[in-house]
């Protein structure tokens, strides 16, 4: 599915947070949204997920406007928020069934899809355990499995590796990449950690609400005359 953001601007009161941000995501591709804390990543995610209202600009998902046909657009999006959004007291399966119900899926269909996703994420044997008993990495996997239950074409992940150890971070990142290959899923992965990005990845660098760069990681480095993304990021944002 093609996703196109057109001239997105957003302000909280007098404070502009996003300024004329435009980009298009390639269908089935892994995209990294890189930016320091406070760059506007969460606000951008808020707009894409309709937790915030579009003030200026529009987002087109497979040609459908988020402004004009929000329900249609929302059906195509799966989201993993920065903070845990699982009910810790409920079991893994109960969390999945709840999410599926919110998307109008019958219990039977939800169970089939839920088990399929859990098998894929190697969590089926833990389906009846309360989420509280799972470690951080597994909780994240459950959140991704949940976000995929209604078979979206776009998966948004807002700093999904926050609070995970290095090994779990890498594992989660690898896993999401395989979803792009196996399911043709379009992924937008927001992060401030450069080690989560590969040189060939499509990278969008956001800083103080502006999109400073948009292209394959190595192309951006070449254009900036830098050795690697870390240096590019430092040069462009002064962070790093």
């Amino acid at each position, binding site marked *: 599915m093609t996703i196109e953001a057109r001239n997105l601007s957003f302000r909280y009161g007098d404070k502009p947070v996003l300024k004329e941000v435009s980009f298009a995501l390639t269908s089935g591709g892994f995209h990294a949204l890189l930016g320091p804390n406070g760059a506007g990543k969460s*606000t951008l995610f808020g707009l894409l997920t309709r937790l*915030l209202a*579009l003030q200026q600009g529009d987002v087109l998902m497979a040609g459908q406007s988020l402004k004009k046909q929000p329900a249609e657009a929302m059906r195509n999006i799966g989201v993993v928020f920065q*903070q845990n959004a699982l*009910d810790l007291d409920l079991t893994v399966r109960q969390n999945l069934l709840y999410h599926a119900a919110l998307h109008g899926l019958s219990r039977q269909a939800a169970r089939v899809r839920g088990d399929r996703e859990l098998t894929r994420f190697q969590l089926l044997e833990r389906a009846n355990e309360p989420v509280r008993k799972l470690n951080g990495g597994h909780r994240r996997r459950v959140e991704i499995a949940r976000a995929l239950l209604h078979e979206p074409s776009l998966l948004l992940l807002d700093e999904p590796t926050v609070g995970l150890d290095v090994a779990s971070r890498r594992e989660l990142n690898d896993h999401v990449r395989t979803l792009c290959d196996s399911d043709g899923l379009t992924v937008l992965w927001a992060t401030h950690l450069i080690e989560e990005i590969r040189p060939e990845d499509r990278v969008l660098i956001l800083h103080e609400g502006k999109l400073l760069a948009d292209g394959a990681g190595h192309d951006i480095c070449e254009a900036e005359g830098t050795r690697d993304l870390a240096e590019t990021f430092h040069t462009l944002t002064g962070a790093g």
Partner: protein
Amino acid sequence: MKAAHYWHCFVGIQTREWLRFWQQRTRFASALVRPLLWLVVFAAGFRAVLGISIIPPYQTYITYETYIAPGLCGMIILFNSMQGALSMVYDRELGSMRVLLMSPLPRPFLLVTKLLAMGIVSVGQVYVFLLLALLVDVEPPAWGYLVVLPALILTSLMLGALGLLIATWIKQLENFAGVMNFVIFPMFFMSSALYPLWRMNEASPWLYWICQFNPFTHAVEAIRFSLYLEWNPMAYGITATVTLVLSLLATAGFRPQRTKILATSKPA
């Protein structure tokens, strides 16, 4: 979206609320202690002071326990609804609120379903309370338990919507203590829950009028009359109208234009 989608969503939200209730059943049980204390201790002490004459819907002289039982049913719903609505918006359930709002179904439907689900759990508690109240001889007619159900559900929707409205629009009241002092206690005390309004009128006419304007008074009266198999169209009418207005206002608070609080990582 087809009707089946709405139905699955409705069932899913109700199921989750009952699962959570089951997980937290000890907390819900302890929430019953408050109204039971009022019923057993407060009412026993006040029985001697406060004589209740024969007033509708009662056919005979009644004990003070019998008089305040419907008010305490309202109190259970009042506390639960406020606590539930606040936790929907602030920290504890911020994540699950986001998950709820990610649904492609219309937000007013999602929110009213959620309020209804929370309300039905409260109503379950009210029934447990009414069963325990039998021990102090609060014995409404058997059919009253069934006839009171719509009034209880309506009250829970009204107070849930009020809680949501407060939580989304009034930033200053962002903790439960504030809501308790400025909303729950005034609503409870300035109503017909603890004393009949004619007594209030004798004491202070302006207080009487405040009680009359308090929608909680009418919710309690709708509960009281239904429980004793009497029809009180005014109490029902006012409760239903206020529920409708508050629900419309509360769901308007969840338009994307107003959900900054949910989009940012920290409550604004």
